[in-house]
């Protein structure tokens, strides 16, 4: 573990008396390795190590009898600060219906996340509507319908031959005349470098002005997380992130990468395949997990 590795570094430095800047830099190399192994992006790690090294050169560490513990404490605190406060509230605005749009790469967990949020909102006394705007993936509409049926939430669909922005617009009209207060729009997975498909998302956004545009990202994403997150954010100005499959054993460094490049809050995490498997994002838990 990182604390064991840092103990090792400082142990062999103990004999030489006072700690020097060079010693701290050596300790920071261990932190760098730990973060890279946790899938935090290379450039994000560089910036993080620079800012933490500055803090670690202060008296706390240099004059401490337990420098390893002090370094861990500083790293941990910096990570938590970077990951933002617990922000699990959806900003549903004042107009009715509120609109949530889910976006992201192929297979990240969007459709399942739509079901999970619908379930959550229903338990909070809302009347949600799921909207099938994935008109390309085989049986995507059926998948959403099965999820909706499981939690007794209606699914709005116009089949797979209608333009997705038109489906989104029509779903708002349907919502207004059916006492729905939150509309959750599922979209097809797509690559952030596919201009035509990214443009489709912009058109849906302009058609229905979502209150929340949530990037659904797989927690086991590696170095590519920064490319994906910054592209989606630049095109759509996302309002938040849902990190999925955290019931796996990935360290989840993608969380730090995504937060660092977008500055947008991670609102929820997926912790399983069932519709109840969603919980708020806790920055301190994520920080501990990343450090390993």
């Amino acid at each position, binding site marked *: 573990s990182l604390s064991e590795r840092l103990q090792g570094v400082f142990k062999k430095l103990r004999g030489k008396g006072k700690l020097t800047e060079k010693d701290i830099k050596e300790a920071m190399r261990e932190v760098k390795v730990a973060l890279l192994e946790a899938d935090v992006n290379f450039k994000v790690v560089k910036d993080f190590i620079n800012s933490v090294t500055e803090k670690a050169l202060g008296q706390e560490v240099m004059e401490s009898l337990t420098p390893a513990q002090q370094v861990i404490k500083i790293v941990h605190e910096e990570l938590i600060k970077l990951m933002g406060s617990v922000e699990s509230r959806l900003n549903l605005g004042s107009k009715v219906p509120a609109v949530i749009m889910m976006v992201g790469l192929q297979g990240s*967990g969007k459709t399942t996340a739509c079901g999970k949020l619908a379930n959550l909102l229903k338990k909070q006394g809302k009347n949600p509507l799921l909207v099938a705007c994935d008109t390309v993936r085989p049986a995507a509409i059926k998948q959403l319908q099965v999820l909706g049926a*499981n939690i007794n939430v209606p699914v709005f669909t116009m089949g797979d031959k209608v333009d997705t922005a038109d489906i989104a617009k029509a779903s708002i009209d349907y919502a207004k005349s059916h006492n729905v207060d939150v509309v959750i729009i599922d979209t097809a997975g797509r690559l952030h470098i596919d201009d035509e498909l990214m443009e489709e998302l912009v058109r849906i956004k302009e058609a229905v002005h979502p209150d929340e545009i949530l990037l659904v990202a797989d927690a086991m994403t590696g170095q590519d997380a920064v490319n994906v997150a910054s592209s989606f954010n630049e095109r759509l100005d996302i309002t938040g992130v849902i990190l999925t499959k955290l019931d796996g054993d990935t360290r989840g460094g993608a969380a730090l990468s995504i937060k660092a490049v977008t500055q947008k809050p991670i609102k929820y995490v997926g912790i399983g395949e069932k519709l109840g498997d969603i919980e708020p994002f806790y920055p301190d838990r994520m920080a501990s997990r990343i450090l390993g």
Partner: protein
Amino acid sequence: LSFGKKVDEELFEELEEALILADVGVDTTYKIIQSLKQKTKEEKIFEASKVRKLLAQEIYEILQKDVEPFVLTSPMVILIVGVNGVGKTTTIGKLAHLYKKQGKSVMMVAADTFRAAAIDQLEVWAKRVNCPIIKHQEGSDPASVVFDGLQSAKARGIDVVICDTAGRLHNKKNLMEELRKIRKVIDREYSEARVETFLVLDATTGQNALQQAKIFKEVADITGIILTKLDGTAKGGIVIAIKEELNLPIRYIGIGEGMEDLQAFDAKSFVSAIFQ
């Protein structure tokens, strides 16, 4: 570009960064760069472009070492496994299409009986490539669907049976046990068939892919890897670490969502793509 640039520590740091950004991982990158520095010294290399060529060659050798070509024989059972959302079901559509083009008879087995509309999804692919599909009700026992699929394939003299399975995280013990059971059924019910178990990995996955490969290999005797979503910006470099540590050959790559978007793995182009 570093043509005519000298070989110095800055060059090795640049190459190290490229490998890390490609998800090769810290340990494997370190080993590769150390070996590269050694060779550069021994062979007295002073040109950066030559060092780059040496690095590409080194990675190529890791990927190609002891790899037997994949030959389609009949009868064959291909079991497709992997964690959630990596592209298993879509890849089966692509494989069926490829093998049919090669003149083989193919059958699909819808053994993901868990996920919403998983059977429906595979059925669409079966229609697209025009091949038979064996399925049960959603919620039924996957091992029994496989059992039925194999009986049917034997009776019909099918060349290649491809089994879809539910996505499952490798740290879920009960799901890995279910997979072990499915594998046992195949070995027991179709002993005359050659069995290939392909682990599907998503190119966007980071270091966790190594753990996935380790656990799936223990449970389901993985014989090859299919790396999907290489049409994105992720490089999938973790397969280098996987090949080095577990000697699993990469058989195919997925480069899109259509039936034709599957290619046999080509180590040379994979390596050059890492440095683009």
